[in-house]
């Protein structure tokens, strides 16, 4: 065992020894790169980063309310929000832009947290609910439901989406851990891509032999937050909240899992429970997000990376920060999607894939990932 790793374990053991008394300001760091985890600079940076992200989120929300295909004076937008606007501004701001903004925040939070959970648990920097086929499972569930004649309301589609996401997550972990040795990042990505291909094949087959499903899917699956209402969001809120609460309980154990499952077990972490809860939480978050917005890829990949760059490897910082940073990225992408083309809107999933895929390529090109 290398010297820094041993130091990190000792540190983490002392942290978990003191149990809940350990201060949250970060004594027991553990992570995939222990040398940077114990970096006091990154813990000092935390309040600054939090403030910056909160500010960015506020700016994005404001921009999201102000910017759109139909231009409308900022003063009228403010009036609308304060409840004294005219009918036209109300229709635009309160019925269209505001719900869409709220939905983007919810979906962004869910996917950001799901991404950081799955990266932490699989110790795989390339993990993302989209790449690994979890969103594909949810999409297949929704397609099957549409085919069976379920209405296109989000509350009806959320259960099939959750079931699909759960099955895909379990299948992925089983496939990646079959065989010798630990599931390497590359092996897991390949398994996920193959799984996503199989699921996508079935999804395509179904929507091609049923025109109604095709039309329903066409607007839903592009990965968009446009035209979603707060009623849609209400249908999935319960699942999102449960998923986020489970994620909160996982923050500490996942820090230990970063040292390897055997080490985590010897530190008193019930790894089977952590595994189960991670699967449930990821499926809830990714499934509910997919049910409302369609599959959005790469958000869960890039956001945790950015957070790790900013505050180091401690899950107690990465997971909450991802919950804050992902909505910023998704809202910004959504604003770009609204204004990038004249007359038409792009689905936000197109923008996140275009921004996120280069992140994946950059990660693999810079040997941040052990490929053998």
């Amino acid at each position, binding site marked *: 065992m290398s010297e820094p790793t041993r130091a990190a374990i000792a540190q983490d053991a002392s942290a978990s020894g003191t149990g809940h008394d350990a201060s949250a300001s970060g004594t027991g760091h553990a992570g995939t790169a222990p040398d940077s985890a114990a970096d006091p600079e990154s813990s000092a940076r935390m309040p600054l980063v939090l403030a910056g992200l909160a500010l960015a989120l506020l700016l994005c929300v404001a921009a999201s309310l102000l910017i759109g295909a139909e231009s409308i004076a900022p003063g009228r937008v403010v009036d609308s929000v304060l409840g004294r606007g005219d009918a036209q501004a109300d229709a635009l701001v309160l019925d269209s832009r505001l719900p869409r903004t709220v939905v983007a925040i919810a979906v962004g939070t869910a996917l950001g947290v799901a991404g950081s959970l799955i990266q932490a648990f699989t110790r795989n920097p*390339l993990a993302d609910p*989209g*790449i690994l086929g979890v969103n594909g499972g949810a999409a297949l569930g929704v397609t099957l439901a549409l085919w069976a004649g379920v209405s296109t309301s989000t509350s009806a589609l959320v259960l099939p989406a959750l079931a699909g996401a759960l099955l895909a997550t379990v299948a992925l972990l089983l*496939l990646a851990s*079959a*065989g*010798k*040795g630990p599931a*390497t990042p*590359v*092996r897991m*990505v*390949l*398994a996920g*891509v*193959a*799984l*996503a*291909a*199989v699921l*996508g*094949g*079935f999804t*395509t*087959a179904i929507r*091609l*032999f049923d025109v109604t499903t*095709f*039309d329903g899917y*066409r607007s839903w*699956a*592009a*990965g968009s937050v446009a035209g979603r209402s707060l009623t849609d969001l209400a249908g999935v809120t319960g699942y999102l909240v449960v998923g986020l609460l489970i994620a909160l309980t996982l923050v500490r154990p996942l820090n230990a899992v970063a040292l390897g499952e055997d080490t985590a077990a010897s530190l008193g972490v019930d790894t089977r429970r952590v595994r189960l809860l991670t699967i449930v939480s990821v499926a809830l978050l990714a499934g509910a997000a997919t049910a409302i917005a369609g599959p959005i*890829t*790469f958000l869960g990949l890039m956001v945790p990376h950015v957070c790790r760059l900013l505050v180091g490897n401690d899950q107690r910082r990465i997971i909450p920060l991802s919950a804050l940073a992902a909505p910023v990225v998704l809202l910004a992408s959504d604003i770009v999607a609204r204004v990038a083309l004249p007359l*038409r809107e*792009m*689905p936000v*999933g*197109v923008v996140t*894939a*275009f921004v*996120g*895929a*280069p992140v*994946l*390529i950059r990660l*693999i*090109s810079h*040997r941040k*990932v052990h*490929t*053998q």
Partner: protein
Amino acid sequence: MTAWMSTDQGDLIVRAPGRVRISARVPVRSVAVCAALLALTAAVTVAALMLGKVTYSPAEVLRALTGNGTRVSELFVVRWRLPRAVAAVVLGAMLGVAGALFQCITRNPLGSPDVIGFTAGASAGGVAVITFVGSGLAAVTGGALAGGLVVTVLVVLLSRGGGTAGFRLVIVGIGLNAMLVALETYLYLVADSDISQIAAVWGAGTLNAVSFSHTGPALLVGAVATLVVCAGLQRALPLFDLGEDVAAALGVRPARLRLLLVLGGVVLVAVVTAAAGPISFVALAAPHVGRRLAGASGTALAPAACAGALILASADLVAQHAVPGVALPVGVVTVAVGGLYLLTLLVRENRKGTL
């Protein structure tokens, strides 16, 4: 001196009798495997000609093919079903060979055109052309070729430094694939509903629209190109498989050979994609299946071609008849089945601990 001699690999060495200095090495197992695969392909093809709205017996199919059948049976078998059956065999063989070439160049068992992004690039190029220009074969071929080439160049440039043998190539391909899928989604949404459906069906890979007048030239070019590639590279490829230095020492010019391989692979996939849309995973699976069956140690083009023909012919039979009343795009079947194949491949490699 005997005319027949067997080597320890089970190959036969055939010598001309007397003083004529001609000899050839016949890989018995490979030839037997190819013959068996072709026989199966023929059986599947006959089944494809028999089945449909009107079902014919094999004897009736034979009569129709030889010009002795009724007019109705000739219409069904020769005019409607034959082009599609022939296309499945020829395009499958082309994909098999193309996959073997790509895997040989990248020295990567996963380095098939689907995985490294060529197919996705060709598909995006084709969809773009259908959306903005029209669905003529020449235009779509151009779009597919351009899209595929651009993406392949990007993949190679971006995975530079890691070499193509590693998994960096595969992951870079996956990233670009995702961007291209997003682009296609966007194009579908931009287009009118009718054009979008045409593009979506093409984008899934289908043989539904195949006819001799429309696709015939592509099939002919493809069949000839496949034979030329197989015959021309059969001797050099095993040397290339040994590594470029060794190949150079044995008298192969590696740079020229690599260029030929790339050209061959790219043209084959582009022609297939233009004729039938992107058909995924045949190019990945066929070389593996062919090589395993033939027991070959390196790149084996002929078994790959035969396996590709059998896979695509079978997949198209399933696509046409799996759901009664609906002709699915064959690409949907190959994606689902090929994805499963990739999964088993990964699990098997895991067991061996090579991944």
